[in-house]
């Protein structure tokens, strides 16, 4: 698993969700770090599965989400940082 930056993860997520974000009136490039994709109605629980699958396929990742706070799972910034840190391997 090679290192993927937070920015790459974030960009991928926003690109994947460009359509539903805009449909709800959100400008993908201007979302705050704590923007919650689930609470805002951008994705449902199935959407989370789709997003994670797409992300892992795109970057050839296998991420363990066990240590990620469920509330942060759908927040753009914390999610991107967590995934990126996981790709960095043990410190």
């Amino acid at each position, binding site marked *: 698993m090679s290192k993927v930056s937070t920015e790459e993860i974030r960009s991928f997520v926003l690109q994947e969700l460009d359509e539903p974000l805009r449909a709800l009136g959100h400008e993908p490039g201007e979302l705050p770090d704590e923007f919650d994709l*689930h*609470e805002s109605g951008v994705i*449902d*629980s*199935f959407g*989370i*599965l*789709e997003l*994670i*699958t797409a992300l892992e396929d795109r970057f050839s990742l*296998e991420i363990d*989400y*066990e240590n990620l706070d*469920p*509330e942060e*799972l*759908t927040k753009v910034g914390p999610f991107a940082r967590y995934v990126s840190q996981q790709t960095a391997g043990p410190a």
Partner: protein
Amino acid sequence: MTGARDFRALTDVPSPERFVSDLQPWIHEAGNPYLDWLFGAPDSARAALAAWMVSDGSEISLGRVVGLFEGGNPIGGYVGLSGSDLAKCVRKDAITALKVAGRDGRPAFLERARELSDLRRPVEPDEWFLSKLGVLVPYRRGGRGRALLEDFLGRGAQAGFSRFRLDVWARDEHTVRLYESAGFLTFDETFSEEMGMRLLAMRLG
């Protein structure tokens, strides 16, 4: 089969992990046919249940189970949680399910998950939700279901909830009548074409 009956929150029981195999059969049955259909086979569903039960962030984590014990053995129980907790659990459980499905099983799992994604009606954050309720087959009858439901309502009220939610398959007429007798009313229903069954969304308060 009877014995001294008591309700115990698994959080109050030392080493609750030892009860996973005792609790899993009724939790599995209470979640079916949804679980077997979603995971494609009973064995896969059991693997997911086992993973969820030992995960603190799961909808059916052991810490949320109230067990009905008779003669010291857990013969049934229920899982209750708030709507706000449920929203968090759904996210975490989705990830665990994906892991259980495995890389090879993901496409089929995602397809089935997509088909079931609109089945459950939302639970409001301030509602106390009955996720699962069940009793092992040899112990059915004798008012245990009603006793479990009353304990669920009592603990919810004690925790400050005045609104209660649950989902039940319409074909489980006996269970539907039990819930109706406690005051639950059906406010919506969905239909699963895959399973050919109606799911009733019920509310009290």
